[in-house]
């Protein structure tokens, strides 16, 4: 099966490519665009990006495997990252992560059986002054308590 972007995203792709002096420079933003639609970077997506930007597929794979944001397998509908680096750790990130794991019944790195949530750890999210922090999809939740984290996770299950 081949991969194709929606017409709106295809237009966005053209706008992205126009920002750079060559097509390859659009590789990372275009991978973001594809992942937004498809959830992860499958072989079909890789081929699409390579063909669209005139790059060897192996080079696109090299990019995908370098950056932690690109998913190399399917993930849950929602992605949750708990920051574990020092400033957050000093303000209870470890306990927060345990709470999340216990509440969801999975370990960091896994997806809930209903496919709703993938839980992961993150390295410093630049939110040290409002630690601990958890990123849910595109949103930061700062100054988190375990109680508030549980509420947020419960809210995601129904969405």
């Amino acid at each position, binding site marked *: 099966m081949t991969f194709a972007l929606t017409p709106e995203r295809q237009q966005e792709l053209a706008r992205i490519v126009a*920002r750079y*002096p*060559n097509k*390859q*420079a*659009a*590789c*990372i*933003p275009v*991978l*973001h665009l594809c992942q937004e639609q498809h959830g992860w970077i499958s072989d079909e997506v890789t081929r699409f990006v390579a063909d669209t*930007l005139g*790059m060897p597929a192996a*080079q696109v794979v*090299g*990019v995908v495997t*370098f*950056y*932690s*944001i*690109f998913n190399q397998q399917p993930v849950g509908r929602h992605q949750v*990252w708990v920051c*574990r*680096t*020092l*400033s957050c*750790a*000093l*303000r*209870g*990130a*470890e*306990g927060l992560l345990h709470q999340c794991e216990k509440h969801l019944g999975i370990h960091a790195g896994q997806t809930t059986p209903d496919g709703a949530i993938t839980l992961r750890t*993150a*390295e*410093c*999210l*630049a*939110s*040290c*002054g*409002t*630690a601990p922090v958890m*990123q849910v999809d*595109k*949103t*930061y939740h700062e100054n988190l308590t375990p109680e508030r984290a549980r509420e947020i996770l419960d809210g995601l299950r129904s969405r």
Partner: protein
Amino acid sequence: MLQRTNYLSSRYGVPDGHRIEAYLRDGGYEQAKRALGMPRKALIDEVKAANLRGRGGAGFPMGVKWGFMPPEPKPGKPHYLVVNADEGEPGTFKDRTLMERDPHSTVEGCIIGAYGIGAHAAYVYVRDELHLSKARLWGAIEEARARGFLGAKPFGIDYPVEVYVHSGAGAYICGEETALLNSLEGKRGEPRMKPPVPAQAGAFGMPTTVNNLESIATVPTILKLGGEAFSKLSALHGMRDGGCRLFGVSGHVKTPGVFECAVGLTLRELVYELGGGVAGGKLLAVIPGGSSTPILRHDELVDAPDPKAPLHPWHGQSVLDVPMGVDTFRGLGTMLGTCCAIVLSERACPVLAMHNLMRFYRHESCGQCTPCREGSGWLERTLDRIVGGEGTLEDLDRLHEIANNIMGNTICAFGEGTAMPALGFLRKFRREFEDFVRTHGASSPRNLAL
């Protein structure tokens, strides 16, 4: 000396302070308009006089960096301005506040900076996770364009400028300027060998200046006050470390946050006045400017008996009372870095703190250079063993040896950024490490959180 200033963060508390109306009310974009009418050399001289030391951590003077660019672009060799907003150094959270709460100062800084270095395009490289920052920057760019401040003729002046936001994808190493350039070009974010420096061959092989986002966002203030007056805000003006900047404090303090002050604040003031004091007992140590800067103990004293030493005026005093500057902190054997301090109270275990950071560096090493790729893994695994209660005293020597073998043997400064803090922890907390090993961890509070 604690001197709060209000140039960079004056719109932080203002409703809709991120919108162009708020920025224009405060005289926004007047400096960009003025700059586009200045001779380029005069503009660079003004920025040089400001003595702005790069806010990304290395502390290189921004005006001097601009001066490295060829005076005029050669045909077929366009110049580029690249703004580094890949903020990810543990403990650092200041650039994000500028992007979220006052994105127009960055856009105006980009117009001035692009003109200053002879570029027509500026790319602001923002780490992917900061979605609100990216949205605010794009919003500001659109608002500025709608007013005719960007595009083919900004302010009606025949000097085209475009500003773009480029998203990273989750890699700390892309904060290293040459890794960032590779990432901007759509490649793996692996640092490049220098030379050539970016001013010779940077983005897309063209002459490029890479500036930290706070540095760029400060440029309109420099022009507004005048370079020299800006520099003189600082208590360290005489050491060519000028102006005001954003200070952050996190970890075990009562009121963590970002505060704008004149350069020359002391760590004691940052922790006890701005940070509201230590939470959870007494102070143990401070990591002064992001996790790569070696830790300072609460009981360390300045050792500069030579009257000619720059730190001699503080000889015998606590390191907490030395003004925070690029050169003063280098003199203390650490670095000022990003000026965002992480505070550890006596209830935090230094062994666990080092373990936490070494896990970070192992995770973020790009893997290009063997000493760093393998060394960061060995550091983490040796610490895993120690933290698990199975370490030996030989392991402590081994940690030293591994760190020393990373140092100086890698393409980029990530190697030093890993080894220096590692050695700092080992040297300054030798007794705590030995006790931890001997008691299999029983000597430790076994905790980082309060």
